[in-house]
Structures are given as structure tokens and as C-alpha cells.
């Protein structure tokens, strides 16, 4: 038996959180472990295969289901912010491919599927920093990475800054975007959350090339992409049929061809 990866309460502060790439991210063997109790994974539906669950979400699932077996409730863990629903949105952005330095990197997430029946309790952006061999190393070795709402001329409200010590090692940077998220909720942005990443070194305000710090998007595997993680607590007992109904609706929408409709009919009959 492997101990559940429970985050100790004295763990690193959320917005300073540079994690080693293995914290919460497991090797492929971990994937087999997680699904060991669920045979037939290889026969997964094509629709589902197109979505590769992020290692962080698998780690969340494994930790909290192991805790359940110990009789603990997921919402007891500080890292879950007393949430019982955690939704991940994988970064689908692309950097403009050019040789000019990448001063700002835009992250846009469509969060319109978040249920308004749930109380949101936290949000964070997790970005894996993979420094190139010739990584920059400033004498102070202290870089500041900041997230600002798109269109902000400077790091205005709800910017998050994280010191990057030893910028040479790969690490998951965890940026708390809860304030930005709340301000977006208050002013309707139609389900879009847009943030810009920028980095400065030491006390200067000059923006550094993000590629040299390891934020290049090109060539990343699905599980190395940045994810926005939103924590929510459902006020009433979650009803399984909500999701089932949602999925029937969305599979009806996404499948058009005759063959698929046949599948849909079969799937619907099976579900009934």
C-alpha cells in the first residue's frame, strides 16, 4: 500500500509554491496504479480517450479516495480548501511562433461549464516551468513571475508574484488566481478567464524572455500543459444524474454522423 500524498498543513505557501515536478505529478506507473482497480481501461470510449486526465487530477483523485477509505473527508484537507468538487481546465493556448523574446504569455480559459449551483472557494494556475539547458541565471537568482488580468497595462489588481529561486530546476509554479477569479465573477466576462504571465528579475521592472525561464509551450505533452484548477463546494448533496444528463446532452451535441447516432442510441439505451 502506498501512503496517500496528503499535503501537510505546514506545506509551502500557496503563492510561493514552486513544487518539484514530481510533487503531485506521478510517473506513468502511477497511472496504472490508479486504474488497477478499474480493468477495461484500454477499452475506453474514443470520446474519453481524447481527454487525457492531468497527473495533478489523478493525484487529487488518488489522495482523496485513499482518504475516504480511511474514513476521512476530502474537504478536511487544507489543500482542497474544503472543496468537494475540483475542476481542471487544460491550457490550449499557443505562443506566437517568432524569434522575438516572449515578454508576455496569454492564458485564456473557458470556464463557462462551472456550475452556478456550487460555491467557488479557490482557484490556482499551475504551470510547469521547464528551463532550457542554457537557462538564465541572474546573480540574485531571484525572478518574479506575475499574472495580470489581460489588457492591464501594468501588474494591477490581483497580480500574483512568485519568487523563482534556482531558476535552473524544472518545477510546477502554483499561482493563486482566486482574487482575479472573483473579480471576473463580479464583472460578467461570459465564461472567459484571461490572464497574462510576465517575469522580471530582481528589482527592475524590465520584462524577461519567458522562454529563457522555461515557460515555452511548444513541444509539451498533454500532462505538462498548464492547468487552471478551480475548487468548489456544492451546497446540496450532489446528484449523479446531473452529470449523466449533462453528458447525454453533450454527446448528443458532439456526435452528428449516422454511425455515431447509432452509438448514441445504444449508449442511451445502455444508460437507461
Amino acid at each position, binding site marked *: 500500500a502506498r501512503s496517500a500524498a496528503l499535503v501537510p498543513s505546514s506545506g509551502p505557501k500557496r503563492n510561493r509554491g514552486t513544487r518539484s515536478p514530481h510533487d503531485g505529478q506521478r510517473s506513468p506507473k502511477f497511472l496504472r496504479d490508479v486504474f488497477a*482497480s478499474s480493468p477495461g481501461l484500454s477499452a475506453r470510449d474514443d*470520446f474519453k480517450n481524447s481527454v487525457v486526465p492531468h497527473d495533478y487530477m489523478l493525484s487529487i*483523485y488518488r489522495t*482523496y479516495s485513499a482518504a475516504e477509505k480511511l474514513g476521512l473527508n476530502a474537504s478536511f484537507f487544507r489543500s482542497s480548501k474544503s472543496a*468537494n468538487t475540483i475542476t481542471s481546465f487544460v491550457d490550449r493556448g499557443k505562443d506566437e511562433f517568432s524569434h522575438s523574446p516572449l515578454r508576455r504569455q496569454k492564458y485564456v480559459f473557458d470556464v463557462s461549464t462551472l456550475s452556478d449551483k456550487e460555491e467557488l472557494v479557490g482557484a490556482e494556475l499551475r504551470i510547469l516551468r521547464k528551463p532550457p539547458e542554457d537557462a538564465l541565471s541572474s546573480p540574485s537568482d531571484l525572478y518574479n513571475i506575475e499574472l495580470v488580468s489581460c489588457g492591464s497595462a501594468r501588474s494591477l489588481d490581483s497580480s500574483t508574484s512568485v519568487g523563482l529561486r534556482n531558476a535552473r530546476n524544472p518545477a510546477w509554479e502554483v499561482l493563486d488566481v482566486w482574487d482575479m477569479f472573483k473579480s471576473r465573477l463580479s464583472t460578467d466576462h461570459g465564461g472567459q478567464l484571461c490572464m497574462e504571465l510576465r517575469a522580471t528579475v530582481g528589482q527592475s521592472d524590465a520584462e524577461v524572455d519567458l522562454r529563457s525561464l522555461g515557460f515555452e509551450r511548444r513541444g509539451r505533452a498533454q500532462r505538462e500543459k498548464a492547468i487552471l484548477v478551480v475548487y468548489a463546494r456544492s451546497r446540496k448533496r450532489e446528484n449523479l444524474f446531473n452529470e449523466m444528463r449533462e453528458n447525454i446532452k453533450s454527446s448528443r451535441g458532439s456526435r452528428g454522423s449516422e454511425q455515431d447516432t447509432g452509438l448514441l442510441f445504444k449508449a442511451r439505451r445502455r444508460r437507461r
Partner: protein
Amino acid sequence: TALNNRHGKRHGKKSKSRCSRKALHVNFKELGWDDWIIAPLDYEAYHCEGMCDFPLRSHLEPTNHAIIQTLMNSMDPNSTPPSCCVPTKLSPISILYIDSGNNVVYKQYEDMVVEQCGCR
């Protein structure tokens, strides 16, 4: 004395066993839910089955009403059926699934596993 009442009969054979928790393995693949549930693909849910007949055992935690109903049934089976063998304690499970926006979601669902059965 509890009389032999009609309610024990099921599929032609008498189910003598007292109210207790029995196995119920749930396979989401057989339910046709494996195209949106990532994990677990199966789990042990258990179910409650058996007789709530007189005298009721204390571990079945009967309500006062169930005690009265059981007494009434044991005196006159035609007056009322015996009380019911139902879950009295349930626990949650975690599910990792794909939502309608193709996002991976972790959710804890309450009342998914029977921990205890009792007469109500």
C-alpha cells in the same frame, strides 16, 4: 410470537435471513457510464436485504415507529407489513469524470456506499 407472514416470500423461496448488508458490485461500464467516468470504473456499493421481524435486534437501530409496526405485524400480519430493511448509514466515494466541456473534474459524491442497514 412472530407468525410466518407472506412478506418473506420472494421468487418462490422464503428469504429467512435477517436484515443485513449484502454485496452489490457496481460496474460503471455496464451502466454505460464509462464514456464519461474516468475513475473508478467499478466499486462496491452494498445493499440491504432481509427480514425485519420480531424481535428486532438492537444493532438494526429501529426507530420507535419501526418497533410499533413490527409488533403490529407480528400480532396481525394483515394489519400492516413488517418494517423495511434499509441503509441507515452511507458514505461517499470520489469520482473523476469528464464534464460537458471536456474538462476533467474531481467530485465527491455523498451516499454512494452502504455502511450499515437497519429497520425503519
